């Protein structure tokens, strides 16, 4: 259960969002600049909303009225940033293990590594990886935190075609394997369709629609060969 009720102000830009979703995977969909990433950062605890309430799976993360504002480190979320943010001075293995809980087993580690096909990369540094590889490591790192929910910010952005296909496949596999509550931010319909169960459309800082993935697919235009800009005649 994802409960988002928040108001954000950043300079001239303002966003107000209120929704409840019992979907396993929720997508926040909208054009660039509509506030999707800021929403994600607010859920992660890196941005403070003006007021509101954020709860995921009955974990209360933020409640301005009750004075609750958990630090990012305590929110127990796995965040995959659009710019990956791998630690450049650590190896892939060290990056992956960074957020792992103390009681995590070697099996868990190996499982994720296998799923994302990272075994050959473990000893390398982020500087030696390709775009797609970096993205996969970032996903693995977030997963290995064993969070109760996963936040993905434009997971396929800035990847060339092969990498997009590769990462998308892995994400689908993860969805099948882990069934983790996921909030996904994107401006590309194909990502959304492939990964989300429910879609929240955001435009100009407002929620304009909350629909399930099928309905979304119908109402959005997906040109053959991959998507570019968002949205479509509703």
């Amino acid at each position, binding site marked *: 259960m994802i409960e988002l009720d928040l108001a954000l102000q950043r300079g001239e830009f303002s966003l107000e969002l209120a929704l409840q979703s019992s979907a396993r995977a929720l997508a926040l969909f909208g054009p660039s600049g509509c506030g999707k990433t800021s929403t994600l950062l607010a859920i992660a605890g890196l941005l403070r909303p003006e007021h509101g309430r954020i709860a995921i799976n009955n974990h209360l993360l933020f409640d301005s009225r009750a004075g609750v504002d958990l630090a990012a*480190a305590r929110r127990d979320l796995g965040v995959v940033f659009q*710019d990956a943010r791998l*630690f450049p001075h650590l190896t892939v293995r060290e990056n992956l293990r960074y*957020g792992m809980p103390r009681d995590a087993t070697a099996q868990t580690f190996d499982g994720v590594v296998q799923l994302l096909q990272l075994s050959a990369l473990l000893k390398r540094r982020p500087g030696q990886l390709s775009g797609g590889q970096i993205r996969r490591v970032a996903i693995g790192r977030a997963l290995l935190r064993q969070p109760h929910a996963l936040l993905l910010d434009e997971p396929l952005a800035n990847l060339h075609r092969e990498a997009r296909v590769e990462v998308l496949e892995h994400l689908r596999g993860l969805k099948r394997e882990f069934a983790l509550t996921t909030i996904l931010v994107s401006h590309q319909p194909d990502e959304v369709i492939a990964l989300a169960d429910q879609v929240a459309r955001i435009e100009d800082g407002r929620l304009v629609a909350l629909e399930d993935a099928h309905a979304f697919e119908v109402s959005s235009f997906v040109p053959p060969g991959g998507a570019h800009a968002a949205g479509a005649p509703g």
Partner: protein
Amino acid sequence: MNLLTHAETVALALSFKVSLVGVVCSLPVASGCAWLLARKHFFGKPLFEGLLLLPLILPPVVTGYVLLIVFGHHGAIGRWLDAAGLSIAFRWTGAALAAAVMAFPLLVVALRNAFESVDRRLENAAATLGAGPWRIFFSVTLPLSLRGLVAGLALAFARAFGEFGATITFVSSIPGQTRTLPIALYELISTPGGEGGALRLTLVAVTVALLAGLIAALMLLRGGTREAEA
């Protein structure tokens, strides 16, 4: 062949000891201050910054005098040190404190720049992975600012090594305890006929300063920290 007289060698060794200990011991405090300046906003921050720069702006003799009345015998802090048998008055530890205080602003400024050059987004990512502020500092901020840190240490060491006014005012000149190289140099140029020794010590001091500058330049020129990959 001895390049330096025994007294000069003693002064040189003492300077190394005093400067190293001074700078290394002030590193934790300087790091804390630098981190606060780089990452936090708080009431009175400009005043705090100004206070940290004081040893740079005050005449060294004034700083030495303040150290004397605070850490000397009967001083506000000195009396407790004396009672505990840890007196630093007229001892090399006092010289180390004088050197550390004079080099402190330089160290803080260098460390602050080094910390600020670390991408905050990486620190934020570490936070989302469950790391608290201390872990973030030691596992992300510090390793990525290491070059700037070493450069700052080299510069602070050079400053500490050359420290004169505050040292001689606070702990006087005591061969083997507080007569550091700059003080020995001063004594030589103050003595008729001491020019030869003064020149030798000057050459030593210049060499140390050049080495420190070289280290700093190497650290800073090789591109500082590596930014986060995409």
